[in-house]
């Protein structure tokens, strides 16, 4: 694009910024301020989880941990089968993630490595489904689940979630760019069936993309609210977010208990994210968006 000769492209931006310490300081200040504002609500979530209701709503508000954590936890458990609800969330998230990983990798492999009749328009159809705003289908979705008798059944959520267009798209991008076709050819020449090739050659090589897709799917399922809101009708089948929301509806909400439940629902994701954030972010930026 430029006619000027290239000079050390990798270090260019460093050099520019190195010359201007002021703008670098301004950048750091800006990012630090934004970071504090981003983390503040999480901080108060943990603080509030250790205070009784009347201390949460007092002036000045508490800014350090209190001593009411145990009482909040007991109160939480007396109001709802919290661990049961958390288990429901986990069950759904694990099933959805497992099936999505399997079917999307399989589908992505087919679109990346095979030539077959109708491939072009089938892939076009797949991309088109990404553009349909799914929220608009709540009413027919609810009615179909009612007709199937799947109300209050977890399968109403994980069966439709077994594969996603986004997942197939992501896996196709990754397999197409990271795995040489010669490997697949070699497996075929050795007499492997198509599925064996998939299992023995493709699956072991798609780890990074699977990690990204798995995390995204898990987080989405774990945090899903509208779906469970439509499907689940009894306390025992509620997922954790749904159960917490019913606690809010009561006139005299125990905010300490509620905050304790919220923290317990968020912490597993924070732990997961602490271990996997780099992989998740790299996967999202390189796989999904660039071609």
């Amino acid at each position, binding site marked *: 694009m*430029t006619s000027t000769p290239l000079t050390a492209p990798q270090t260019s*931006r460093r050099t520019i910024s190195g010359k*201007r310490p002021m*703008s670098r300081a*301004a*950048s750091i200040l800006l990012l630090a301020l*934004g*970071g504090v504002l*981003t983390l503040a*609500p*999480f901080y*108060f979530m943990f603080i*509030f989880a250790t205070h009784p209701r009347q201390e949460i*709503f007092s*002036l*000045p*508000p508490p800014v350090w941990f209190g001593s009411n954590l145990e009482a909040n936890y007991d109160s939480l458990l007396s109001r709802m089968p919290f661990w049961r609800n958390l288990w429901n969330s986990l069950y759904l998230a694990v099933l959805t993630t497992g099936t999505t990983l399997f*079917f999307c990798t*399989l*589908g992505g492999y087919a*679109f990346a490595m*095979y030539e077959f009749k109708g491939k072009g328009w*089938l892939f076009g*159809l797949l991309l088109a*489904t990404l553009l*349909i*705003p799914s*929220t*608009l*289908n*709540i*009413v*027919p979705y609810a*009615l*179909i689940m*009612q*007709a199937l008798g799947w109300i209050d059944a977890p399968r109403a959520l994980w069966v439709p979630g*077994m*594969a*996603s267009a986004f997942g197939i798209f992501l896996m196709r991008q990754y397999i197409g760019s990271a795995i*040489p*076709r*010669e490997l697949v050819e070699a497996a075929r*020449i050795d007499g492997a069936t*198509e599925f064996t090739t*998939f299992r023995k050659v493709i699956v072991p090589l798609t780890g990074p993309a699977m990690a990204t897709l798995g995390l995204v799917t898990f*987080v989405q399922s*774990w945090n899903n*609210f509208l779906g469970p809101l439509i499907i689940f009708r009894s306390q025992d089948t509620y997922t954790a977010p749904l159960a*917490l929301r019913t606690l809010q*509806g009561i006139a005299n909400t125990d905010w300490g208990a509620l*905050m304790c439940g*919220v923290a317990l*629902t*968020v912490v597993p*994701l924070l732990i997961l994210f602490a271990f996997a954030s780099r992989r998740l*972010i790299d996967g999202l*930026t390189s796989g999904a*968006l660039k*071609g």
Partner: protein
Amino acid sequence: MTAAPTTPPKHARSGGWDNFQRKYAPYIFISPFFLLFFAFGLFPIIFNAYLSVHSWQPGSGLGDMEFVGLRNFTDNLTDPTFWLSLKNTAILAVESGLPQHLIAIPLAFAINMGLKRAQSFITAVYFLPYITSVVAISVIFFTLFSWQYGVLNAALNSLHHIPVLGVLFPGEKVNWLGERAFVQPSIAMVIVWRYVGWNMLLYLSGLQAIPGELYEAAAVDGATRSEQFRFITLPLLRPTIFLAVTLSLIGGFQLFEEPFILTNGGGGVGQAGLTTIMYMFRTYNAYSDAGVAAAMAWLLFIVIGALTIVNNLLFGRSGMGSNEAPR
């Protein structure tokens, strides 16, 4: 990558079973997605179209559906609450959408400028709200927004007492979720907080695709930093901006969870937090009017589709790369 032949080589074992399974394997591999899509994606859409021209109370059996033509649509179009919800949705989409990008672009730019080493850490921090459940977020903010005893008002109050700068902050407590004028800004604030990190990530990947030598060349030619931003960064970032804005637009018009929980399901003071999806859910769930709710979904779909097309005509074409999905 070299283009390898996709048909099996001649010397491969070519029994009947081999050919058969090789030919049909891709179809079998992609069929789970398409079966699910037909059952739970396409069929509901068709069913929704059918529902939208029928009157039906759920629970009374499918036989009791009565064809009413376009009456469900006219019912919606003459319903002031529908228009209110649409207006609320549009205001919320703008109030929450615009700041997201105006904050995310400078942040991404700042990271890209000179903080390469801390990049993963910073991005992770900003990304945290995005991976946290809306219920959790809304519950936390509900307490932060508290009128008399909330952290937000307490913080604003102490900022107000700083000399000189203090005039920028209100001296009186803001009744965030309790006063009509503040309901929408409060909801918008939560949404901005939640999605800034996501947009920042999009912009960061867009910025990193811009070759460094462009800036180098511009600097040699004597371009200032702001000129570099205007003439290199912005034009080359345009496809990313288009993608991010489109995603915000589509998401903004489907707002449900944040306003639903922050207003305790009811829409808040003067229904200022009632979005169209919330109203659709209420029409189906509380009023048991599936036909009208289905028609409402179509009306909202038309609005979203029209806005997407307008957005595309205004900003999409010239800046669009070859990587985007076909329209």
